[in-house]
């Protein structure tokens, strides 16, 4: 039997981790919801973001918070270029084309990552100083708290951007009805470019956050893609608050599950949750339309 305070501890750690999972999933969810594209390279973009932050810290001593901003910008630009140069040519040609293109991109990013940084896991602990916070028997590490707060800030920022800015309104209009949005004078092609930029930028930021807590290798892409997709399925495609809830559920389930089943089961737990949710609701917990449309 596992002690109660250990369970509470895992639960809290899971909640804090869940915030990052939510950020990791948010970009995937937005791109899926708005453009109906599943970015199969999302996890690999997250990996690139993590290495941007790690490099900035180890080479220039820049704090991971700066790293996060830079990672966002780098991936934002990459995502916009991807849409402008590649994806716009295959969207609307059926579902296979974008899937295969992004699968190919994932392969490229992973291979480039392996060439540039090697196969070994990079040392984490990229220095957020600060003492653990203790509440009774429970201790929460300071980096986890910081990354959680940053995650919430990113999610809140994205939500506010979509809700309160004109561009956000244009994005939502495009998601609802592309043709109608065009009649209203919205340049939907540019909206797609921007949306993919934001989506991949968030992947980069999530990578930077994760690099503060976990070792990163060039091969983590697939794993984080599936975790992010699990969150999307749990929270509903395109829903910002849903994504946060989905992330928290996944973080907690993983952390508490690992307590009982062992560390080797971390990914098995999240992927199984994902498949089980799909079993109950084939289009996601809050989804209502088919994926192929």
């Amino acid at each position: 039997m596992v002690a109660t305070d250990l369970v509470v501890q895992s639960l809290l750690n899971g909640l804090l981790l869940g915030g990052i999972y939510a950020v990791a999933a948010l970009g995937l969810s937005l791109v899926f919801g708005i453009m109906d594209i599943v970015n199969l390279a999302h996890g690999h973009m997250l990996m690139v973001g993590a290495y941007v932050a790690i490099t900035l810290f180890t080479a220039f001593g820049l704090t991971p918070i700066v790293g996060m901003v830079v990672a966002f910008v780098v991936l934002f630009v990459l995502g916009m270029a991807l849409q402008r140069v590649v994806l716009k040519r295959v969207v609307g040609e059926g579902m296979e084309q974008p899937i295969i293109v992004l699968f190919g991109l994932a392969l490229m990013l992973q291979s480039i990552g392996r060439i540039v940084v090697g196969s070994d896991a990079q040392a984490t602990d990229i220095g957020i100083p600060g003492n653990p916070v203790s509440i009774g028997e429970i201790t929460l590490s300071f980096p986890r708290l910081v990354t959680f707060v940053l995650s919430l800030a990113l999610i809140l920022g994205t939500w506010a951007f979509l809700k309160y800015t004109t561009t956000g309104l244009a994005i939502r209009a495009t998601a609802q009805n592309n043709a109608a949005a065009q009649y209203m004078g919205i340049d939907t092609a540019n909206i797609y470019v921007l949306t993919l930029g934001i989506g991949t930028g968030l992947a980069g930021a999530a990578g930077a956050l994760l690099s503060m807590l976990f070792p990163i290798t060039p091969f983590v892409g697939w794993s984080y893609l599936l975790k992010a997709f699990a969150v999307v399925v749990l929270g509903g495609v395109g829903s910002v608050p849903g994504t946060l809830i989905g992330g928290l559920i996944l973080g907690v389930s993983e952390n508490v599950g690992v307590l009982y089943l062992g560390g080797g089961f971390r990914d098995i737990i999240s992927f199984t949750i994902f498949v089980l949710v799909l079993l109950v609701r084939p289009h996601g917990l809050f989804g209502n339309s088919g994926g192929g449309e």
Partner: protein
Amino acid sequence: MVSLTGPFEGLFGDRRRVGLFVVAVLALAVVPYTTTRFVTNIFFNGLVFVLLGVSWNLIAGYTGQISLGHHAFFGLGAFVSAWLTTPMRAGLPESIQSPVLVAVAAAAIVAGLLALVLGPILFRLTGHYFAIGTLAVAAIIQLVLLDQRQFSGGATGYYVSNELEPDVVFLLMLVATVACILVTYAIVNSRAGLGMRAIHDDEDAASSLGINPLRYKMFAFIVASMMAGIAGGFYAQFWLYVNPDSTLAVSWMVDTLVVVVLGGMGSMAGPLLGGALFVALDEGLRQIAGEFAPVIEGALIITFIIYAPGGLYKLLADRFGDAESPAVDEDATTDQSGAE
């Protein structure tokens, strides 16, 4: 509604093609006896890629179900055949030790059974959800095997032994590949094949015409998975080594995609051309580009999808005026035949 444009379309469109196919098979049959082991190895991998490509093309190219979990059936097939010829290393009873052919048959059956169990679950999903769902299931299978060290050898893997010479395993693989190509050809040109293409084009329309989509999808999925299991079964017996990290890795899925996309999705000749091109490319690229080879492969996938979505097959067919292009993603072809 689609209809056949002729019972001998595609790869075996005319005598010239049958002749080419027979010559290629005969040339491959003498490879182990006329060349070095190094060359044999390359051609063996070529056969593996062709079989993976042909089988994935059945489910993805013809039926339109983009499975991203094909590598799980390949990897599981490899492990099943490894366990059966070399049971002691996995802590299994010596009494189950079997000859290579039995082991590979078992690999096919286990892969087929797994598809039978997973199919009804996965086919509740459509489109993107199906693609990601299959990717997740394959990842779970790999992680479970990685965790079960006694059966999989953990991260270091596990050596296989059998009673056959590698040259013989090569020939068996060749026979199996040819058999699978013929079976696939027969399926594609049968009533079932028509149903599959109808589902590919428009599942709802197919369903309203009395086609049971699940039945055809399941059929394609089980057959494709068994073929992947066979490829894995022989792979383990030829290379005599399996490892959950690499044998069940998603990179096999990537390679399969490269083969089919380069060759031409939804055509019979596509995976054959793609397999040949990929082996040449893979070997050639590794010599020239070294570790950059996968980067170039990824770029090639993207380039082909954008500029030559019909793959090499379509390019050749256009170049040499071959009108029998059976590429299923061409609306014009199906519309015409539908009007008949």
